[in-house]
């Protein structure tokens, strides 16, 4: 098959896919008797046209960057980690245990400790499927999916029976001590000139961006990343080169689970300031779409996470200000995933043909 020019591969294919998804979304909105133009106006207005909207869009995007990077690292090792959701929930447990039982003097130290706790718990949750894959050949897709369910049950048990403060009715931990409060954008000097009202986006956003850089360095600049990528491309070749499959599977999954767990810094420590049930609220799954759309490259993941942040926030605005039900947000997300992920090849082949046509007509003209 012919190849596309690089700019078309990186920019045009996603653009066409997104346009198709938008067109079908508009048709769906028309079908339920609403005005698609109004919908898109409300979505854009409420998510990226003012600081308040950005404060939410970036908050969602932060979570998606972590889970998207988690899927990316595993993907380069040839492993499809679908367990981001469970790993992120366990990350939340790590954050809660770190913050509830140790009195931290300042949020910076608490942030370091909670990050370690989140990453450690997330990694531990990924370690069991990784071990089963490496040693027993149990397929990681199956085991990570099952571990999402186990994680959900474990969290219910922890919140209802262990961590719920006496006398409280809701399955949630107590609030974290005020000293561990992370600065939101409206509390950061400089940024607070733009973000004047309270928004959930917080310092974790910068950690997420830093992690994107770290993942890029890891994969393309270190020996470990080289081995991960080589193993992911060809296991027999990796064996020939003396790369230990067990070691690579374990390390890649630990990093992946750790990244997914780190997401809890954003939502559990930064926003809710206590651990609630279903804390990851789907971000683990969105991470798969984000990684897919971002072509498993950290830059692509950050951009795709911003797009999904926009869809999340804009979708919420739809439910708030129009008669369009908030569930439509799920429909739009589904279409975006369908077109950018599953139907990517369809769009690509179409473009390849169009480019080939141009090329022949140019040749004939010459």
């Amino acid at each position, binding site marked *: 098959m012919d190849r596309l020019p690089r700019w078309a591969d990186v920019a045009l294919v996603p653009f066409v896919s997104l346009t198709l998804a938008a067109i079908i979304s508009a048709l769906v909105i028309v079908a339920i008797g609403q005005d698609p133009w109004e919908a898109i106006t409300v979505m854009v207005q409420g998510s990226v046209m003012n600081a308040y909207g950005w404060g939410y869009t970036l908050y969602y995007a932060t979570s998606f960057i972590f889970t998207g990077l988690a899927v990316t690292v595993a993907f380069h090792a040839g492993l499809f980690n679908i367990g981001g959701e469970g790993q992120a929930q366990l990350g939340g447990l790590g954050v809660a245990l770190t913050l509830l039982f140790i009195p931290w003097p300042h949020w910076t130290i608490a942030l370091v400790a909670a990050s370690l706790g989140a990453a450690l718990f997330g990694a531990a949750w990924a370690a069991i499927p990784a071990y089963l894959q490496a040693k027993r050949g149990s397929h990681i897709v199956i085991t990570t999916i099952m571990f999402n369910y186990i994680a959900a049950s474990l969290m219910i048990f922890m919140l209802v029976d262990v961590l719920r403060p006496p006398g409280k009715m809701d399955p949630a931990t107590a609030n974290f001590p005020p000293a561990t409060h992370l600065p939101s954008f409206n509390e950061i000097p400089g940024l607070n000139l733009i973000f004047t009202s309270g928004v959930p986006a917080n310092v974790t956003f910068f950690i997420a961006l830093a992690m994107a850089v770290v993942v890029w360095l890891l994969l393309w600049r270190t020996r470990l990343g080289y081995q991960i990528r080589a193993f992911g491309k*060809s296991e027999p070749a990796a064996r020939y080169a*003396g790369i230990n499959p067990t070691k690579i599977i374990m390390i890649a999954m630990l990093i992946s689970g750790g990244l997914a767990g780190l997401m809890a810094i954003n939502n559990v420590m930064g926003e809710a300031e206590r651990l609630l049930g279903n804390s990851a609220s789907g971000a683990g799954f969105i991470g798969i779409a984000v990684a897919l759309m971002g072509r498993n490259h950290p830059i692509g993941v950050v951009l795709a996470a911003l797009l999904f942040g926009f869809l999340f926030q804009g979708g919420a605005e739809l439910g708030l200000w129009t008669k369009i039900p908030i569930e439509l947000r799920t429909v739009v997300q589904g279409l975006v995933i369908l077109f950018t992920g599953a139907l990517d090849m369809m769009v690509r082949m179409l473009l390849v043909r169009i480019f080939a046509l141009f090329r022949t007509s140019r040749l004939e003209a010459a």
Partner: protein
Amino acid sequence: MADPAYAIELKGISKAFGPVQANRDINIAVPKGTIHGIIGENGAGKSTLMSILYGFYKADAGQIFVNGQLTPIPDSQSAIRAGIGMVFQHFKLVQNFSVLENIILGAEDGQMLNSSLSKARKELERLARDYELEVDPDALIEDLSVGHQQRVEILKALYRQADILILDEPTGVLTPDEADHLFRILKGLKDQGKTVILITHKLREIMEATDNVSVMRRGTMVATVKTAETSPEQLAELMVGRKVLLEVQKGAARPGEVVLSVKDLRVRDEHRVERLKGVSFEIRAGEILGIAGVAGNGQSELLAALGGMQVATGSVTLKGAVLPLSGAGSDGQSRRSAGIAHVPEDRHHHGLILDFTAWENVAFGYFNDPRYQKSRLFMDNDAIRADTERKMAKFDIRPPIPTLAAKSFSGGNQQKIVVAREMEQNPALLLIGQPTRGVDIGAIEFIHNQIIALRDAGAAILLVSVELDEIMSLSDRIAVMFDGRIMGFRDPETTDERELGLLMAGVAGKEAA
């Protein structure tokens, strides 16, 4: 319009895959009742041309005449109806069906099989008598040797009343004896008036078996000559487009100390079947030990065990130091640091990561090399790229672009990337499997010279190849493997293909070990 004296006549056939012109204005005429060779390097367009003739591809332009009649061949069913049969390089047989069942597959007469089977059995007896094509009709394919499986493929074509038989690289998997038998069968077919088209890259087979030969180079037909009026040298020059040396130029070996000593090496596969059944040998510095044998007789396992890709038992010492054969210290990294370089048999699955760039592949297996590190944490990608440029210049790898993906190089240049990477380590021992498989003649000459140069620099070399010519011309000593054992050692100066062929077939020689 066309001459009916020709069984096949192709006029102006062109076929492009995207920007690649695989066939350009091909004209060829194959007289009835002859064996016609088509020879050319990999990628010259031989297989594309035959796929067009058999209806797998549709030509962009051109016409096909069969027995003088213009015959469009849009699919393989039409090819079969036109009397064309094809024997593929990779057999298309159902492994757990009997010979008879395979032969009627797709040519059954009705819903019930019994009548077809008994008709096929009679027909098979006749064909076996006429053409020296004996096979047990009730044997299962998986129990047959490769040579017999090939006969089944030929029988399949004849059962479908093929008058024109195309064979694509038929001898790649055969012992010399089996190949000789095949050529006798082909002669018999010719005597009965059938036409045979033989595609190969082996000059010797062309000279032995064909009446006429057509030479292809880069998608064009450069010449068609009578075999009796040409020479291997002339054909090689036509194929490559320049003069090539077919003989390897090498001086006598000056063996030094024992470098590799292998005693009672055994390997079991994942089904616990023993594939290597107690192999013992030594290789000295400055010596090439060639392992001859039909593919699948334990050579791959031998390379894998020595290269650290496979767990084994027995004892192996390198320059006196014991090499662990399982557990810690038995992986590819330990082997490399012990001074063993390994050009694996299968460059696509083992030697290269096809999606990686050329420079990433140059570091493959040597990513721990201190020269490639910037710090404890980071690799020095610039240093690897510079090293790649140097290797590309030295080994004449084309195009010399380190950032190009390995899959974008031709087979010969891919192999040169692997060979350059491994040989430039100055290993004490080089393991090299099928060094020139799928490599064009020009690159074969180059790789052979590099192997000799490394030997003369004092390395011990273990060469595994299914090409007997290659083993004969490169080795200082030859070991023949059959069924996981070494059947015997021979001196290439005093042995011949016949003797080696018998050993390869498992017939023990007088001094078999």
